């Protein structure tokens, strides 16, 4: 490294950080202006708080033997389960005496883990393949596009119902499978289209002339430019993943010990679902939680959409 003489240059990372902060500020303002995005973010924050609060409550206020979301039960209410909301159980207990609120909070963590993992995988795959297809075109493109067509031919939930017999679907594997499947599907086509608009930009040409390798160009030029769109799709994918997990759990098709879907399934299989208002605390909280989390991520996605797609902005 040569020492700078005279004027001191700012280190590159600082410039980058400043640029990033500046664009972040601008985008945040746009996101905020969308009004629906912040609502979604707010709901997500509430869920994050619930997730964080659970282990703390278990360690302090809640007796594990009573409040454990899977094994706990309240012996003082013996014979009264499912018990309606009370001071000890703000959302009541389930048919085998477990605390609904504890289950609800505990499951939040797995929903996030599942949703975010699966969406991340989807987006990473989709972005990479989209960029590669756009850059190379030809046979590579044709192959991946056919795969995408093929994946999109399958009804997603129906496909997972079959896969569940092939692969033992616990939370992690489900996230993986969902992520990979949707990664090779429609998202690739969308991101490729975006990458194609980037590819024809002059700076790509310039980079090629300057002798940049394909890998370098894809990594440094194409991917960063389709990242915002990828990020946007990630939000929608979280919604999809959470919803899918809930449906499969609701049908009792997943080997997960507890989740919001399983909570409703438990109520349904024990025969409390059809009593509706009489046992509302068994289905309403998990049902609302699933809906709200899906709703929230979708809102954030729509909010981001206005940031990423100028055409949707208010004029």
């Amino acid at each position, binding site marked *: 490294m040569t020492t700078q003489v005279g004027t001191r240059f700012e280190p590159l990372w600082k410039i980058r950080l400043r640029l990033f902060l500046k664009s972040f500020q601008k985008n945040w303002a746009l996101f905020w202006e969308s009004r629906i995005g912040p609502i979604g973010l707010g709901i997500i924050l509430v869920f994050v708080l619930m997730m964080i609060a659970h282990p703390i409550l278990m360690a302090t206020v809640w007796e594990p033997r009573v409040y454990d979301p899977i094994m706990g039960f309240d012996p003082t209410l*013996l014979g009264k389960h499912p018990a309606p909301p009370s001071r000890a159980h703000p959302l009541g207990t389930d048919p*085998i005496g477990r605390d609904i609120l504890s289950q609800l909070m505990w499951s939040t963590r797995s929903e996030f883990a599942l949703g975010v993992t699966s969406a991340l995988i989807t987006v990473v795959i989709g972005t990479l393949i989209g960029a590669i297809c756009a850059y190379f075109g030809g046979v590579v493109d044709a192959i991946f596009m056919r795969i995408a067509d093929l994946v999109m031919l399958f009804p997603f939930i129906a496909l997972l119902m079959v896969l569940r017999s092939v692969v*033992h679907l616990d939370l992690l594997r489900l996230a993986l499978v969902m992520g990979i499947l949707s990664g090779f599907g429609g998202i690739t086509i969308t991101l490729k289209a975006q990458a194609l608009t980037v590819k024809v930009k002059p700076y790509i040409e310039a980079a090629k002339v300057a002798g940049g390798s394909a890998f370098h160009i894809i990594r440094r030029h194409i991917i960063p430019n389709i990242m915002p769109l990828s990020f946007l799709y990630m939000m929608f994918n979280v919604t999809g993943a959470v919803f899918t997990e809930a449906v499969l759990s609701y049908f009792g098709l997943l080997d997960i010990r507890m989740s919001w879907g399983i909570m409703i399934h438990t109520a349904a299989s024990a*025969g409390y679902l*059809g009593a509706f208002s009489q046992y509302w605390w068994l289905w309403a909280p998990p049902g609302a939680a699933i809906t709200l989390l899906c709703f929230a991520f979708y809102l954030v996605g729509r909010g981001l959409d206005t940031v990423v797609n100028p055409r949707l902005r208010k004029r």
Partner: protein
Amino acid sequence: MRKALAVVAVVGVLAAGQVLHIGLFEDLTTTNIWAQIGPDATVWNTYVLGGQYGSLYGSVPPTWTWLPSLADGFPSDFVEEDGKWVATVKIRQGITWTDGTPLTADDVVFTFNVLLTQVGGMRMALALGGNWPAYCPDTLLAVEKVDDYTVKFVYAEEPGLGEWTFGALGCPIVQKAYWEPKFQAALQTEDPAGSLLAVVPVDEPILGGYDFARWEPGAFAVVERNPTYYGTGEILTLYEGGGAEISNPRLNYRFEAYGGAKTGPVLHKLVEGPYVDSIIYPIYLNQDAAVLALQKGEIAMFLNPLGLAKGFEDRLKATPGVQIIANPPWGFRYLAFNMRREPMNYKAFRVAIATLIDREYVANSVFQGIITPMYSVVPESNPFWHNPDIVVYGKGLTHAERVAEAVRILKEAGFSWDAEPKVINPGTRNEAVIGVLPDGQVVPAPKGFKLPDGRYCPELELLAPSAGYDPLRATFALYIEQWCRELAIPIKANLTGFNVIVNKVWAPDGFDFDIYMLGWSLGNPAFPDYLYYFWHSSQDVPDGFNTPGYRNPEFDRLAEAFLKAKSVEEARPLVFRMQELLAEDVPYVVLFDTPIKEAFRADMIEFPYTEVLGGIQFVWPLTTVKALK
């Protein structure tokens, strides 16, 4: 418009007759008797369609007394003729098919001849599959007509209860005139069994109390009363001492069995109907809809083989007119050890785990009485076969005592720990196995569970249905896991799909599991032949039923003798001894089952009795049931 009115009028007339609505949860899959007993043997098919046919003999609920139905009196004893064993059965006279022709020996002989026909290197009975092979055991050589009302059964060796009383004699009989041409046509095809199964019968003559009328796939099925039913007005009297009496004033038929009226006061007096003009079976695809329909009075009851879940019971309890009854189940859910593997091959290990399992705690505290703890491979609800004096490991002990006992048993057998489990404060309120003493002293958790030869115990997998399939078993498995972990026994519950378990337990190249948890439904309560299939060493082959790999020569001998027994009295002590052996050796730990709870509208339907093993769904084929509205 006029047509529409006419239709409404017809519906009105129908409504005026006696109609019962009984809900089903699954659709029929066939109307063909061969398929219905064969590959399509579902409880739903049987429930709706089975009542059309009759068999020579049957076990009659609620006492499961074995009595003649199409036959006249009990069969003759077997006699040896030219190295073969022969018995004759007399057919009751006066029984007619719905087309007016009488039931004769020809029909019986035809039915068995279909099953005995060789097709593609095997008997038709095997090719048809399902329950047919049980009705046509290997040792049955021929069924011949002696005269119009007498049939001769020829066996290669003297048959036991399984092959005769509870085998061939229970076979449903079909009409020769109707089926003969169809059977001959099927024989001409490449796949005779497949062709026979594919026949869609139209206006098939039957002889049961209810005749199948209409099936609207996915919506409902209807049966109508058979006006020519031979049994109408027939009185079946069951006595407390086990005696039975059949009398049919119309056909001038009387039969007394097992001591008849001499065996004490009348237990049940059942007068055959059918009392209902037609029964409509609407199909509900979920229980909630059926429960709602029951509450609204749209149906009088619904058929529910597993019984009502607690929620439905809670909801229906409050509905006026609805009566809920509980009957003991005829089945059990159990834990099975793979005795081919270490350490499950050690009896002490199995006994220790059996000792640790506190069924009462799970049943009474966790599940609040919705499950019944069970201890024997023959449920105690079947007092004739159940042996009440078997060993039950750990019964009545507290948790701490169970732990102490299990540790003792394991240590005695040579198992050891790096750090042995300790019970803290035994007998006090603060007793615990591991954890923290009230004074803050931490008792170290046990660790390093070792086999008698000093090696560490391998990680063991407990396969159990996931909460999605059966929350009861899933939770129970988690408790077992927890109890074992407290003792550093490395068992991990793998809650997974039913199919996954089945495919691992019955893996193509042998039994690929450590411990699994499933359940059985047990077939005919009058004859628990499953004892043979589940634990006889001949079943310890890939795809066999002896999943634990239980091999006990004494048990094998008993089981074989049991199948060959000529009477239930002879079989009973054998079953008792078999239960003792199984309880002692614990290839299975029988855990629990749920009582069969059923709901019906007492203001719409009247049952002749409601106490019956397995539930009122066994008050069947509903010819003694009355409609009240």
